[in-house]
């Protein structure tokens, strides 16, 4: 038997180190390609696979260490419909921009910090405390909370108070379903949310220059929370939510400024009175509790009747008009009828 010496191995047969190091990603991508090919031959299955989504995960992108529950749940994401409000024909903000341009101050103050400084963050295992005016309070494993819910794809506009905006395909389920699951009492008039504080994996928490008092808090009125548009997201672009985008579970309230859409939720509290919220506490004359997108009411620092749709290139001139309720007025304006929105901003 001839035993080849190492020098007999042709250089072309040696796996490049970069490919070897990324072998799991390689298998994952190959799998997706094969699945995609198979789905092409079987259209009935295609709609159930992520290949049937309006905005599937771009090849070679995505999170490599998604938890086991995601693998199971994500095999049957319902694709977004063809019409508003759960879909928009506007061009999507690319995956790389959605996942590298973030305000998530727990991971740092710069827009790039959350993507570059969240490597130590663990979003699995995860538990959420349900408390307050609710029939079934307790600390629940995320898997148990998610078990009864089917995931769906929704393509929403996201408008930041800083006057930029994106179009993002989220994966999630209506917050209303989660609320019903825990049976709030008649006293539950508001829902309060809290983000995790983990100083070890969140450099922003350790920073001396951050003026935010942790944990980050947000809240919604009950009717806002129950509105069908309000989404609990666990994925983006048909893939597991990256840490910088608020893994493992975050809120999406598309008709409000982005800061209402709280990330990495660990606590959901039902209460009778309006909760304190982080930005409102810090600068109440600048950030209201409602924070509905409203071109008629300017923030003291940012005018709100226009926005930069990202990604921009300097000469594409994508400075567009901002619409009331971020274009979701038909679905939500009735909740605020009779309210002076210049006062309750």
């Amino acid at each position, binding site marked *: 038997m001839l035993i080849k010496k190492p020098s007999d191995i042709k250089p072309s047969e040696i796996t490049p180190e970069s490919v070897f190091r990324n072998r799991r990603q390689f298998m994952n991508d190959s799998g997706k390609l094969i699945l995609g090919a198979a789905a092409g031959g079987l259209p009935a299955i295609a709609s159930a696979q992520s290949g049937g989504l309006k905005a599937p995960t771009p090849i070679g992108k995505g999170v490599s260490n998604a938890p086991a529950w995601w693998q199971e749940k994500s095999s049957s994401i319902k694709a977004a419909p063809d019409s508003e409000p759960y879909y928009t024909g506007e061009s999507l*903000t690319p995956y790389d*921009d959605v996942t*590298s*341009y973030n305000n998530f*101050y727990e991971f740092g*103050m*710069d*827009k*790039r910090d959350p993507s570059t400084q969240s490597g130590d963050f663990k979003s699995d295992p995860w538990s959420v405390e349900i408390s307050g005016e609710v029939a079934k309070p307790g600390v629940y494993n995320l898997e148990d909370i998610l078990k009864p819910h089917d995931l769906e794809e929704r393509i929403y506009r996201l408008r930041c108070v*800083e006057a*930029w905006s994106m179009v993002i395909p989220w994966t999630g389920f209506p917050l209303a379903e989660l609320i019903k699951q825990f049976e709030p009492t008649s006293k539950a008039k508001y829902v309060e949310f809290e983000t995790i504080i983990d100083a070890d994996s969140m450099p922003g928490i350790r*920073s001396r*220059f*951050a*003026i*935010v008092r942790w944990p980050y808090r947000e809240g919604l009125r009950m009717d806002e929370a129950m509105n069908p548009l309000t989404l609990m997201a666990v994925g983006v672009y048909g893939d597991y939510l990256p840490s910088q985008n608020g893994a493992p579970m975050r809120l999406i309230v598309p008709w409000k400024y982005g800061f209402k859409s709280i990330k990495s939720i660990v606590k959901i509290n039902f209460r009778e009175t309006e909760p304190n919220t982080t930005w409102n506490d810090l600068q109440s004359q600048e950030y209201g509790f409602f924070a509905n997108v409203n071109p008629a009411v*300017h923030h*003291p*620092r940012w*005018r709100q009747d*226009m926005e*930069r749709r*990202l*990604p*921009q*290139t*300097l000469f594409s*001139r994508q*400075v567009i008009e901002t619409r009331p309720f971020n274009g979701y007025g038909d679905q939500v304006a009735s909740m605020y009828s009779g309210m002076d929105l210049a006062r309750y901003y």
Partner: protein
Amino acid sequence: MGKFIKPLIFILAMVPFGVLLLRVVFNELGPDPAQELAMETGEWTLRFLLVTLALTPLQRLTGMIVFTRQRRMLGLFALFYATVHFLVWIAFLLGFRWFAIVEELIERPYITVGFSAYLILLALGITSPKSMVRRLGRNWKRLHRLVYLAGILGIVHLLWILRTNISEALLYGGILFVLLGYRVYYSRGRKIL
């Protein structure tokens, strides 16, 4: 040797602008280039202003006249970066909506403050040639003391737009405080005040 200093500083002072241009050309400014350009040009304005303000103290401390000889040119570079900053704001952040510019100047205090600082730099730039120095006589010095006010307004402008991380603004503000404090200290010692 001495005659190379000025061209060398000129070239160095153009480097940040060159780098920004390259980043524009190669689309390396990220998904929100307008915001990035505004931040960068604003910061370079402040940096040049602080360097300019550091030259007189450096000359007094070292006795080397070479420092103050660069003052006008570096001051003009502060004006240059401020002008780019101003144009970036109008063109890319407001998308040339002229009605919005007037509104912004009136309604957004941080813009009012920043624009005031810009007007000062503009006035100092216009009166910087030697002929203007001669024509204005004693008033030239009085006018050019406004650069201290421009520095303070610039720091306030920066502090006002920041959302939460104030470390850089504190650093620049601290440097300005030291530079202005030195002048107060120096002029008291000389009984000029």
